[in-house]
């Protein structure tokens, strides 16, 4: 589906970004991986077995890092057809303890990084025919809040309108931009933190119409679809990959006893 597509994915050495990289490679794309850390030893080996990929270290929370990554990826692949803005972070500090540094850290990575990476992508790829696209990882938290996550929720709300607003602007460049919004996904972090508590897992699963939290391979193929010609008339869209959690209002009992 994405043969010869040249893709750069920010924050793609673990979690949801890694799942997207995996799916893009399986679909035939050539991929630039990125993180602000060195990847775990086996990650590059495993992904290289799926197709052509290279790693570029860059910190997307700095404007120079965001612009530099897109420039370097463009040079290394001899052009770019898709940018996946994915690198993001959160804090679970209580609201009253959030200081300006927390605010900056989250907004700079989750919003400013997306913004300037996309601007540089549009600058470099020039006038296209809607075969080029940007995919932004949003979240169900862009629409529905979680207690104790005001900075993360706010940043993801910003990503929703970033996608919609840039869809108008990027259309002039022949570039589509859309979002993938995961719900509760079993990332390594989720497994480490949430799955220590089986009762919590049961309560969460009970609130998901499909009855389970998502897997990484639930998300990756959706990004592939949005980058592919099958989505050629789709722009400004956020696709929720959430097992239906955002469709449901409340549960009245915890099933599955």
């Amino acid at each position, binding site marked *: *589906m994405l043969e010869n597509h040249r893709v750069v994915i920010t924050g793609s050495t673990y979690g949801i970004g890694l799942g997207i990289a995996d*799916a893009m490679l*399986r*679909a035939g794309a050539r991929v630039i991986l990125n993180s602000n850390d060195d990847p775990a030893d086996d990650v590059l080996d495993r992904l290289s077995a799926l197709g052509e990929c290279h790693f570029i270290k860059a910190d997307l929370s700095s404007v120079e890092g965001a612009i530099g990554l897109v420039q370097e990826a463009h040079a290394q692949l001899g052009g770019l057809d898709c940018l996946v803005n994915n690198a993001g972070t959160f804090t679970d500090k209580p609201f009253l303890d959030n200081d300006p540094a927390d605010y900056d850290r989250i907004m700079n990575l989750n919003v400013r990084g997306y913004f300037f990476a996309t601007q540089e992508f549009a600058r470099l790829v020039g006038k296209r025919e*809607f075969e080029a696209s940007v995919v932004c990882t949003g979240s169900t938290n862009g629409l529905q809040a979680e207690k104790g996550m005001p900075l993360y929720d706010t940043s993801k709300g910003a990503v929703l309108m970033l*996608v*919609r*607003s840039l*869809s*108008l602007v990027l*259309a002039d460049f022949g570039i*589509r931009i859309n979002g993938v919004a995961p*719900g509760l996904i079993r990332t390594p972090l989720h497994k480490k933190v949430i799955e220590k508590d089986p009762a919590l897992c049961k309560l969460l699963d009970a609130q*998901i*119409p*499909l*009855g389970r939290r*998502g*897997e990484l391979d*639930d*998300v990756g*193929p*959706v990004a*592939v*679809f949005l980058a*592919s*010609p*099958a*989505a*050629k*008339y*789709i*722009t*400004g*869209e956020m*696709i*929720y*990959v*959430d*097992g*239906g959690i*955002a*469709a*449901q209002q409340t549960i009245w009992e915890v*099933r599955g006893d």
Partner: protein
Amino acid sequence: MIGLEGKRALVTGGTYGIGLGIAEAMLQAGARVAIASRKPPKDDVKQRLESQGEVCFLQADLSVADEARRCVRDAFNALEGLDALVNNAGSFFDVDFMDLTEEHFARTFDLNVRGYFLASQEFARVVGQRDFDAAIICVGSSNSIQAEHGSVLYDTSKGAIFMLMRSMAVSLGKHGIRVNGLGPGLIRTPLSSGGLASVPGAEKLLNAQMPLGRIGEIEDCGGAAVFLASDAAKYITGHMLYVDGGLTALQAIWELPEA
């Protein structure tokens, strides 16, 4: 992964317009397809569809309750099972708000809403317990969330489809069936072409309101339906996917297109 090999799909209203585009895309993706329509397909349409894969045609008026249910059973029998239902058959009246009658209301809602409801209920009945490999797709519209002048009943019926889809997604999760929507924007179909041609300059003005710069074509919608029915969407339910060239992302244009 975004293929439909081995899948069996029923598309209602699939002999022209958006439904035809969906049926063709599903055939091209490897599905076996049953098409339900009030009138039989034109010869050239029938031949084109048959050249693209295994397809069968069922006669049914989806606005009649018994026929909506029967056509799902007929499709299930003809294809020896069903994996996807595309609720698509719909219509509208080009009638001023003040002239709309109870009959207009009934005819719009019987087809656009009750038809979807009953066909989906029957689908869930006949396919039984599934493992999230079965999917219902409801063709909504950008009119599910944004209204058009002179289109009160159509807009209302499509608004109903948005919540019908979301509510069925919540209820059918435990059946292992996913339910999603496909919301086309303004697409050039046999139904919309007449209106477009009747207002001079309309098309240019409309194109200027589409971020992608053009009214959609039937072929633009098929890929999204294939995606939603495929395993690539296996964790997606309760979602309306707009295929609208960015139309619903834009608030207003600030200048007229050049004449």
